[in-house]
C-alpha cells in the first residue's frame, strides 16, 4: 500500500477517537438518559420500567446508535497499538495489551448498548423482572469487567513512561493513564450498594470515573495522537523513537 494511503487511513483512525466521544455522549448518554444512569440496585423492577425504559422512548434508538459507534473505540485503539510498536517495529507486549483492552472495551460498549436496546424495545412485552434482570446483568458486565480498560490504560501508561525514546506522549499523561485506570477498582462495590458514591450513578463510580476517563485519559491521548498523525513521516518516526529505514 502506498505511504499516502497509509497516512490517510491513520488520520481517519485518529479521528475515530473524537467521533466515538461525540456519538457516545449523544447516543448513550443523552438519548440513553444515562446522565446519570438509573440506580437499578435501589429500584424495583416496576420502578425501572416506569421511571426509565417506559418513560423515555429515545433509549432504544440511542442504544442502537451506541452499539454502532462503540467499535470506533476499537478502531482508535488499533492505531494506538501501531504507535506503540517496539523500536524494531514489532508489536511488543504492551502494544498487545493495549490492543486487547481496546478491542474488548469497544465490544463492551457495543454489546452492552445492544442489550439495553433490547430492554427498551421489549419493555412492554416482557415482565418488569426480566427487564431488570437483563438491565442489571448488562451493567455488571459493563462496569465489573473494568480490568479490560484498566489493562489498556496501564499498558499505554507504561509505554509512555518507560519508552524514553518516544516523544509522542508526555510522561505525565502516562502516569495519569495508570492512575485513572487503577481508580476503577471502586467499581467492585457497585453490585452491592444501593446508595452513596459507589452505586451505578454514584459520585465516584459514575461522575468521577467517567469524567476522568474522558478528559484526563481519552481526551489527552486523542490530542497527542491527532498531533502525531499530521506530522511528516520522518518526524513521526523520530517521535515514535524509531529510525527510518533507508
Amino acid at each position, binding site marked *: 500500500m502506498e505511504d499516502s494511503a497509509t497516512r490517510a487511513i491513520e488520520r481517519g483512525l485518529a479521528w475515530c477517537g473524537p467521533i466515538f466521544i461525540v456519538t457516545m455522549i449523544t447516543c448513550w448518554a443523552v438519548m440513553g438518559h444515562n446522565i446519570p444512569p438509573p440506580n437499578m440496585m435501589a429500584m424495583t423492577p416496576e420502578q425501572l420500567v416506569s421511571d426509565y425504559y417506559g418513560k423515555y422512548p429515545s433509549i432504544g434508538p440511542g442504544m442502537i446508535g451506541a452499539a454502532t459507534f462503540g467499535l470506533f473505540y476499537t478502531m482508535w485503539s488499533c492505531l494506538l497499538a501501531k504507535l506503540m510498536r517496539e523500536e524494531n517495529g514489532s508489536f511488543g507486549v504492551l502494544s498487545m495489551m493495549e490492543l486487547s483492552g481496546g478491542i474488548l472495551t469497544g465490544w463492551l460498549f457495543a454489546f452492552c448498548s445492544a442489550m439495553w436496546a433490547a430492554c427498551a424495545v421489549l419493555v412492554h412485552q416482557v415482565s418488569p423482572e426480566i427487564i431488570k434482570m437483563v438491565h442489571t446483568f448488562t451493567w455488571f458486565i459493563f462496569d465489573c469487567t473494568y480490568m479490560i480498560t484498566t489493562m489498556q490504560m496501564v499498558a499505554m501508561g507504561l509505554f509512555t513512561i518507560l519508552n524514553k525514546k518516544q516523544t509522542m506522549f508526555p*510522561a505525565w499523561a502516562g*502516569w495519569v493513564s*495508570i*492512575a485513572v485506570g487503577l481508580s476503577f477498582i*471502586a467499581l467492585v*462495590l457497585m453490585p452491592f450498594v444501593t*446508595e452513596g458514591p459507589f452505586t451505578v450513578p454514584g459520585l*465516584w463510580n459514575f461522575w468521577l470515573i467517567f469524567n476522568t476517563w474522558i478528559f484526563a485519559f481519552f481526551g489527552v491521548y486523542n490530542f497527542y495522537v491527532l498531533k502525531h498523525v499530521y506530522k511528516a513521516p520522518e518526524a513521526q518516526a523520530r517521535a515514535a523513537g524509531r529510525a527510518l529505514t533507508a
Partner: protein
Amino acid sequence: MEEPPWRVTGNCMTSDKRSSGARTPPGTDGIWTFVFIDMIVFSLFFAVYLSERLRLPGVFAASQSHLDPKFGLVNALILLTSSLFVAEAVAAARLGKATLVRARLALALACGAMFSASKLTEYVGKFAAGITPVTNSFYSLYFLLTMIHFLHVLAGMVFIAHCLGRARVEAGLTVFVAKLENTGLFWHFVDLLWLFLFPLLYLAGPK
C-alpha cells in the same frame, strides 16, 4: 586509581552532586510525578468522603464511633518509625554503607509487616462483627480508603525488599541510590497518607 563517576566514595556524597557541586533532587522526576498524581486521586477520595459525610452525618457519626482509635494510633506510630528507617537507609546508601542500608531496610520491612498484621486484625474484627464494605456509605469509604492505602503499603514493601536484596551488590552505585530514593519517596508518601487518614477516620468523629 580514580573511582568511576557512578560509584559513591567514602563519606563524600558524590552520588548526588553534579561536577559543579550542586545537589541534585532526590529520586527521578517520574516518581515525583507519580506521587503527585496519587495525591490528586486521594484528594478526590477525600472530597467524596466529605460530600457523603455532609449527606449522612448521622450514619458517619454512628459508624465512626465503632472504630477503635488505638488501631489508628498504633499504625501511625509504626509507619512513622518505618519512614525513619527508610530515610536512614537512603542516608547510608549515599555514604556507600551496604550493611547499614540492609539493616535499616530490614527494620522498615519489619514495620511494614507489623502494620499489615495490625490492619488485618482490624479488618477481621470488623467482618466478625458483621461490618463489611457494603454496610453503609461510611464503611464503603473506610474500607476503600484503607484498603487502597494498604495496597500502597504492600507495594512499598515489595520495592523495599527489592532494594534490600540488591543492596549487598549495588549499595555503592549511584543508580542504586536513585532507586532507593524513589522507593523512599513512595514510602514516605504512604506514611503521609496515613497522617491524614488517621485523624479523618479515627479521630474526627464525635466523642
